[in-house]
């Protein structure tokens, strides 16, 4: 088990380097000069500009810039943004915001996905099953952006049930609407998979065996169908978990929540390569950890997969 985890972490290192390098290259390749954009129309004294350029290694070759950013990051010298904010402070303030939003969004997504999926699977071809199919098609057809804006307008602006944006109303009020939006965009896939998996498993041979053993329907469902049907569902829940941060970036920008997603958005706009790489690395670490957790859990629930 320990060896399995170590092996996975070691394998992740080169992938992580490639990913962050790729992200850095993308930022580097973007048009425009970062410091000029920050300054806007105001002229900047040549000396100040030169000092800034040196501070952010902007005149070094691409690969040197990348390596210096990586070195700063791993030695804990996060430095400041172009605008002068302390990056470590920013992280301390922003990480909780993103975590709260992502967790709440994930909870909505998982609960809705599992509930609808289980119910549709148990009562296949019933009313709920058909409604779910319809809902899935709608959610898949409507882009996330449209859904977010619609949610914001309907429940925030028109009905005034929930705050339109910002974090002034604190936890959990400020987070409810964006989290619900995240949940709605993501639950349908999970529900469909859960439903399909239950229906498939209910038709499998071992369920026939269970019937031939004279077991009651409830026992067959809970002891034989569900433990098998939920195996692929656990995997998808892990993927959802890892992907929830993508939803968070969008939601934070639209609902103006000061989290990591918004930070990333601003950093990309300003071509702040260092910040972008730092945040990408964080996201990547999260991704690796979640996948590792999914594999460990999967090994525990499926005896055919033993992670040794």
């Amino acid at each position, binding site marked *: 088990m320990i060896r399995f985890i170590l092996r996975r972490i070691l394998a992740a290192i080169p992938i992580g380097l490639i990913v962050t390098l790729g992200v850095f290259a993308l930022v580097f390749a973007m048009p425009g000069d970062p410091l000029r954009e920050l300054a806007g129309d105001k002229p900047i004294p040549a000396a100040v500009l030169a000092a800034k350029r040196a501070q952010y290694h902007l005149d070094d070759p691409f690969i040197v810039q990348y390596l210096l950013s990586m070195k700063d990051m791993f030695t804990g010298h996060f430095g400041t943004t172009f605008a002068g904010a302390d990056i470590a402070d920013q992280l301390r303030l922003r990480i909780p915001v993103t975590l709260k939003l992502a967790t709440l969004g994930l909870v909505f997504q998982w609960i809705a996905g599992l509930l609808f999926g289980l119910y549709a699977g148990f009562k296949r071809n019933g009313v709920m099953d058909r409604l779910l199919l319809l809902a899935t098609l709608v959610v898949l057809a409507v882009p996330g952006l449209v859904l977010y804006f619609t949610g914001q307008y309907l429940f925030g602006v028109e009905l005034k049930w929930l705050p339109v944006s910002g974090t002034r109303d604190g936890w959990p009020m400020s987070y409810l609407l964006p989290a619900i939006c995240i949940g709605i965009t993501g639950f349908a896939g999970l529900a469909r998979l859960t439903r399909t998996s239950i229906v498939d498993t209910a038709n*499998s041979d071992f369920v026939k*065996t269970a019937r031939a053993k004279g077991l009651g329907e409830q026992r067959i469902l809970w002891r034989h169908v569900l433990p098998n049907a939920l195996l692929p569902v656990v995997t998808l829940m892990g993927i959802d978990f890892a992907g929830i941060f993508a939803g968070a970036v969008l939601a934070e920008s639209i609902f103006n929540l000061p989290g990591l997603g918004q930070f990333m958005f601003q950093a990309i706009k300003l071509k702040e390569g260092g910040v972008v790489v730092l945040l990408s690395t964080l996201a990547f670490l999260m991704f690796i950890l979640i996948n590792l957790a999914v594999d460990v859990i999967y090994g525990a629930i*499926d005896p*055919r997969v033993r992670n040794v």
Partner: protein
Amino acid sequence: MTTPGEVLLKVDDLTVEFDTPHGPVRAVDGVSWQVRAGETLAILGESGSGKSVSTQALTGILEMPPGRIVSGTAEYRGADLIAMTVKERRKIVGDRITMVFQDSLSALNPVQSVGTQIAECYRVHRGLSKKDALKRAAEMLDQVRIPAAARRVRDYPHEFSGGMRQRVMLAMALALDPDVLIADEPTTALDVTVQAQILELIADLQAERDMGVVLITHDLGVVSDVADNVVVMYAGHVVERASTAEALDHPVHPYTEGLLGSMPSADLKGQELPTIPGTPPSLRAIPSGCAFRTRCPMAIDECAKEVPPLLTVAPGRDAACILRTSISEREAV
């Protein structure tokens, strides 16, 4: 306790249809047979002839819908399984009548240890504690001759070989000392030596318990090795019923004859196996009259007129062929 020779399971005029998008199809048509204590009854037929559907329908494990029992009774010691409620049937199917299936890997729950799965029979039907049930499960594994049974109860299905896994299936089916075992192609997925071992094991356990065995197979060799009596099915119909010895020595129905011709036997060794030309009909296009007539070497125009009834040609011998039943009856006089 059963008394020797007692009729345990008596199936009468069982007809099963499936509702398909193209309309109903009849997979089992007027099937009748019975099995006695201590007897091994083989149900023989090519793939798709309705062997599995008929046994699954009478035990109530067939998915219904799309399946539908159109008519028939299946009496376990006088009580009709088909007419009784699900609750009543669960006290018999799984306890007094049990089943094993062909593919033991897919027929066992992959995420439960084999011990837990066997123990479940004792827990549900006998109300035993977890600990006692597991102990009994280990004893059952030992009875089906799985080495190191006490240790292997904790193993999962995928950790057994095909033959060992079929023994696990048997252990589960025999855990409650059933009166009737329905074995649906229990050895088809196994290689020949393992196949022989499993058949021998079934025979031994049957002798110990005086159990009735319904053995479904498409292998005439298996029939000749272990069956006392045989029911031959074709396209959902029973076409011949006889003791194994009679059926093998003097087949009455041309289909049984054809199957015999396709069995590898001593004098055929080294030669090409003769098989019955053609394939079984699709359920959506069963020929009028005798379903076998499209492949029957002696079919005449008469055969297309009506479905030949299953007639007794001699004591304990029935066949459904207009040519053979009339000839035999004439000869019998």
